């Protein structure tokens, strides 16, 4: 889901607080398809990705585009409003009860050389890596992907060389939302959730994006690993209930000390 955030930021220069809402919605749609229609939670992304993509494109067309010209804080507040609506809509529809997906896959484990590993965890990890690779290939090897990158770097220059910038921005926003929904669907396999599900996780994913620098996809992978290591080590020396504190502290420290992110800072050091 961090990639979604990075993509939207890169192309639109908008920090998308609604990401948290779509992440949560992805988890709920997976759960709802599973409990109401017995759709295997592993198949839910096949529905979620296209639908969320369309929702994202629609959101960009109807609302986000209107505020693109104004101060950055306005778009932040707009997407904050979208998040507020999604979250409370979920409260009204599904109540605040804790939900979780329960089937035999979720409980399954595998023994690998004396270590017992949870299969859903491995699956989620693998899907995360796969989608990152796919995204990277899409951005570097396809016309549309290159157009997205060109728009991210310089909107006006992209327009000059004939990129349909409006369309590209809509698509990029749609992909970002689709990835958030996909991420939520994957995470519903690991955690129980409430309509407040997305907040801490999306703060974490923001932390990852910031760690890796705000507009590089490779940086995102780097940021994920860095945060995971920081958390794993941190928890050894502090109570487990303080785990989330690590990511918030990392977030604030990195934002303040290295506003370009670690990758960006290294790059400018090399150049400097």
């Amino acid at each position, binding site marked *: 889901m961090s990639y979604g955030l990075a993509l939207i930021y890169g192309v639109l220069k908008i920090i998308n607080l609604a990401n948290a809402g779509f992440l949560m919605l992805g988890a709920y749609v997976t759960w709802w398809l599973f409990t109401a229609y017995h759709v295997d939670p592993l198949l839910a992304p096949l529905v979620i990705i296209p639908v969320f993509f369309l929702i994202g494109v629609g959101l960009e067309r109807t609302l986000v585009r209107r505020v693109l010209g104004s101060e950055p804080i306005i778009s932040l507040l707009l997407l904050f409003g979208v998040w507020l609506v999604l979250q409370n809509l979920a409260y009204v529809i599904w109540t605040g009860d804790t939900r*979780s997906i329960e089937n035999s896959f979720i409980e399954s484990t595998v023994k690998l050389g004396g270590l017992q590993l949870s299969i859903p965890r491995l699956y989620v990890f693998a899907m995360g890596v796969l989608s990152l690779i796919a995204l990277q290939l899409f951005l570097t090897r396809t016309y549309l992907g290159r157009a997205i990158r060109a728009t991210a770097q310089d909107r006006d220059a992209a327009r000059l060389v004939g990129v349909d910038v409006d369309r590209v921005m809509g698509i990029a926003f749609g992909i970002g939302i689709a990835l958030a929904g996909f991420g939520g669907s994957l995470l519903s396999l690991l955690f*129980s959730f409430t309509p407040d599900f997305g907040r801490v996780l999306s703060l974490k994913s923001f932390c990852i994006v910031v760690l890796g620098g705000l507009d590089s996809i490779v940086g995102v992978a780097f940021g994920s690993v860095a945060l995971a290591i920081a958390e794993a080590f941190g928890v050894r020396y502090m109570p487990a209930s303080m785990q989330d504190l690590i990511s918030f502290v990392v977030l604030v420290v990195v934002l303040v000390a290295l506003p370009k992110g670690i990758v960006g800072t290294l790059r400018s050091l090399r150049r400097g």
Partner: protein
Amino acid sequence: MRHSFLALAAAAVACSVVAAATPVATHADNGPTEVVVGAVLPLTGEESTVGTYYKAAYELATKEINDHGGVELRTYGRKIPVKLIIYDDKTDAATSRNLYERLAVQDHVDAMLGGYSTDLVQAQTVVPNQHQIPYVGGGGAASAIYKRGFKTIFSLLASIENLAYTECDFIEEMQAAKKLPKPLRMAVVFENTPHGQDFARGLAQRAKAKPQSFQIVMNEAFDLHGKDFTPLLQKVKATNANAFMADAHLDDYITMQRQYTQAGMHHAYITYGARGPDKKGRDALGKSADYIVAASWWNQAIPNAAVKAFDDKWAKAYPKLNTEWYSALPYETARTLYIALTETGSVDKAKLVETLRHIDIRDTVLPGGHIKFPADGQIEAPFVVTENLPDGKTVIVYPHAEKTGEAVLPVPGS
């Protein structure tokens, strides 16, 4: 211009003042037209499962009273029906407290029934104390709630420290029968509420008093209503514990035990305090919930006629809700209030508190059957220890008076 908005605000304010200033209907000497009783429960949010049971139980007890014409209040020489008001606090402590305030100042309740779960009860009880309204609860077990000198608060839920002692007594019996290792090396994890702290304190006291039977190799709090306990469980795994002693609420218990199984963990003894036999947990966890030992305030397997009768009554009223301790405790809570009202003979709040202080009820479905409040307002009732066995079976393994089966310990495969 801009002032029109201030004017609008002022007008709105004035309207609300006039509306609220209309005199509250005061009852004449022949008594009120109804006895107003209020409760705020977690009907949605993390504690919604238990909250829904409390609502059902309060309504069942109230319906029984109203089917007979209401509570008999001799001062007014007649029976007066009970009006029960229930709000939803969404499992949020501040909301819970505010809605109790609403019961007090807007609904003018005569008495309050308690909410559920320690942290909410701790917050909400400031209201009955401030307004001196009698409050009978069955949902906050931590002893800290009753050590604050609040005079109008009563609870039917015995303390978690006693729960921990009861489990220790049972463990010693198992150690004597060579069914559990001695000493038992305990990894203690508890939610960071007074509920969890009570549990940890109880175990720590036993470990101190009887080091040859109990050792604590890990002692750590976790966040209430957490979503991921894997880091905590990794720490537990790294110890040489042979017993996993957790104290958790229903949602945390389900999340944690699932992750416990996923992490491939085993101990000779597993407990989650009062959680374990709950149908919701067993449905959610399947085989992962087998062999969990729990000490609870009540269990439907208690072999006596009153319990059987209550079980039947509950099943008839709520065929979709399995009978749990959180059916029986709130039912007896509401019944205690109605008995106290009848004994008081009026809705005088101070007199009702006085009655509750001296009340002595014998024919209840609680273990031991006896309801009586000590000076701090929290009952001292015995617990029953249960163990989950395969195929959804639950047996009471302690104390002897209530025993329905033999414990299977250590946990097979550990």
